[in-house]
């Protein structure tokens, strides 16, 4: 590909030397990767077919029974549903909102740089820190959210936003929106930078209104960025743990559990390592299926057009 064609300079020993260099360079990374990524994942699969409480040898082989237990567990099934609600909700709320804000900010205006910095701040904070602050804001009695609602005559839920099983998940979703909207805006703004200025000028000459330009030019050209962002958002939502753990711990009444909180509960709290193993395999399979489907159904055309772009730039480089 891009690497220079090497060798062919008549040095025979250099072939061995090269092999040695490759091994030397790649081994540290591969060793680390094998020990801390590959091995634990293989172990997770292995644990999932045993009943194991965390000590002694793996002897109690149970086949697929752990999977049956997990899939028959209402708490787990609910947590899958919660994950899917977060996946759908995040995209459905952040996509239009992020797009609207990005379009509004994509113009010369005073304080633009500062504005972009500020919008990105929540994304940089740790989920834990954002969660702790919001936990205080959402407190039923002295929380400022309820205070503000009260001052405009609205009534807050009695058990608090995080204490009501019907509201807790939506409250978590709202906090997640606050935390991650900035990422969407920044990515969309970056995508907008890639829209050629000439298109706007041409449209303006043709007498297109601002609204028409956004709808016919900007949004379609932003397609690849939006689809990639949605993919990221989806993968992140499927792994959701920190924010839930801080805000609700999965409660009240298991109304906000996610697959990750479920497997941590089973694994480290109840020492049901087999169950946790099965749950993590299921989590991975769900994530994989959704990723592959998304790639096949939605992203495939971008990838194809990408190849074309890359080829074009390469040609340009050669001719230069």
């Amino acid at each position, binding site marked *: 590909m891009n690497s220079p064609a*090497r060798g062919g300079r008549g040095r025979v020993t250099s072939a061995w030397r090269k092999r040695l260099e490759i091994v030397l360079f790649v081994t540290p990374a591969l060793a680390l990767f094998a020990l801390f990524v590959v091995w634990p994942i293989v*172990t997770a699969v292995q644990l999932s077919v045993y009943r194991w409480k965390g000590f002694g040898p793996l002897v109690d082989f149970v086949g697929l029974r752990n999977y049956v237990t997990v899939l028959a567990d209402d708490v787990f099934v609910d947590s899958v549903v919660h994950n899917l609600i977060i996946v759908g909700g995040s995209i459905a709320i952040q996509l239009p909102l992020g797009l609207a804000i990005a379009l509004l900010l994509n113009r010369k205006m005073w304080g633009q740089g500062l504005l972009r910095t500020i919008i990105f701040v929540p994304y940089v*904070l740790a989920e834990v820190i954002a969660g702790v602050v919001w936990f205080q804001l959402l407190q039923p009695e002295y929380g400022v959210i309820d205070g503000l609602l009260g001052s405009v005559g609205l009534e807050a839920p009695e058990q608090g936003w995080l204490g009501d099983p019907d509201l807790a998940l939506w409250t978590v979703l709202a906090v997640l929106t606050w935390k991650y909207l900035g990422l969407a805006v920044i990515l969309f703004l*970056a995508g907008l930078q890639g829209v050629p200025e000439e298109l706007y000028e041409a449209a303006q000459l043709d007498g297109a209104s601002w609204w028409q330009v956004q709808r016919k030019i900007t949004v379609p050209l932003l397609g690849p960025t939006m689809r990639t962002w949605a993919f990221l958002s989806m993968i992140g939502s499927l792994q959701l743990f920190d924010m839930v753990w801080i805000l609700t711990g999965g409660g009240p009444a298991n109304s906000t559990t996610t697959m990750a909180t479920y497997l941590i509960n089973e694994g480290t709290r109840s020492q049901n390592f087999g169950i946790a193993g099965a749950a*993590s395999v299921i989590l991975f399979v769900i994530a994989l299926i959704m990723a592959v489907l998304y790639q096949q159904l939605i992203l495939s055309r971008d990838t194809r057009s990408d190849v074309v772009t890359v080829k074009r730039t390469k040609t340009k480089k050669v001719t230069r």
Partner: protein
Amino acid sequence: MSTSNAAVLMHAPTTREPSGRRRNRKRGSFGGGNPVVYAIALAVVALTLGPVLYGVLGGFRTNAQIAQDPSGLPSPWVLDNYVGVLTGASFWQYALNSTVIAVLTTTITVVFGVMAAYPLARYQFKGRETLFMVFVVGLLFPATVAIVPLFILITQNLQLGNTWMGVALPQAAFALPVTVVILRPFLAAIPKELEEAAQLDGTSRIGFFWRILLPLSGPGMVTVGVLAFVGSWNAYLLPLLLLQSDMKTLPLGVADFSSEHASDTAGVFAFTTLAMIPALVFFLAMQRRIVGGLTGAVKG
């Protein structure tokens, strides 16, 4: 930072220009902001910064003030909460742990990552693409999936539970795929002519790596380094399982403080505010790298 992993994955096989090279064209069309735009922008800023500022100001109030009027300003301003956190030992201990773990993670990630990316980018050998695919597939595995066996491996087999290294090593391992995938095109983009010239001057491939490639790929290494650092600094799940008492990091400390002093709202705000300062300062200093790295990864 598992989200950024996936971003790169989709564009992994394609070679791209170093993201440092950015177009800085002026956005002019339909220029000017009208009052409505400014009003909306102001509302967005208020909603974004509101909770953060409320936490900062809350740290300057007393619990009595907060209970009396949740949405009021500090009156009078009280420094006790911040002083209390800063004079306590635990905050500094947590900050130290967070710093050491983040530095270790970043160092291991960048050193191992750039080493692995070098042959993958510039050597011609059989199995090169297969080797690269190992890292690409690695992007698909979030740490969450392997968390329970990882916990067993580190605490029981390696006896590294409750140590800095015990957290840094797995964090670096999970940051490697994205690092290699970002760095490879970076290293590949360095002109072939440079390497040939170096060869004519009698420089070995390793000499080329040290003296030419590493200095030239600085921006790429800063990008992956920043991503690794921020990921480690904000990490919660792995430290939560592996670290106890004195070894805890700031996110764990914040979570603990919040549950142990649940009634001390002002204290929680003070502790949380102080804990977010390092990340914010780091972000402001590295802003262009972080944003550039993320957008570069997504735009491909």
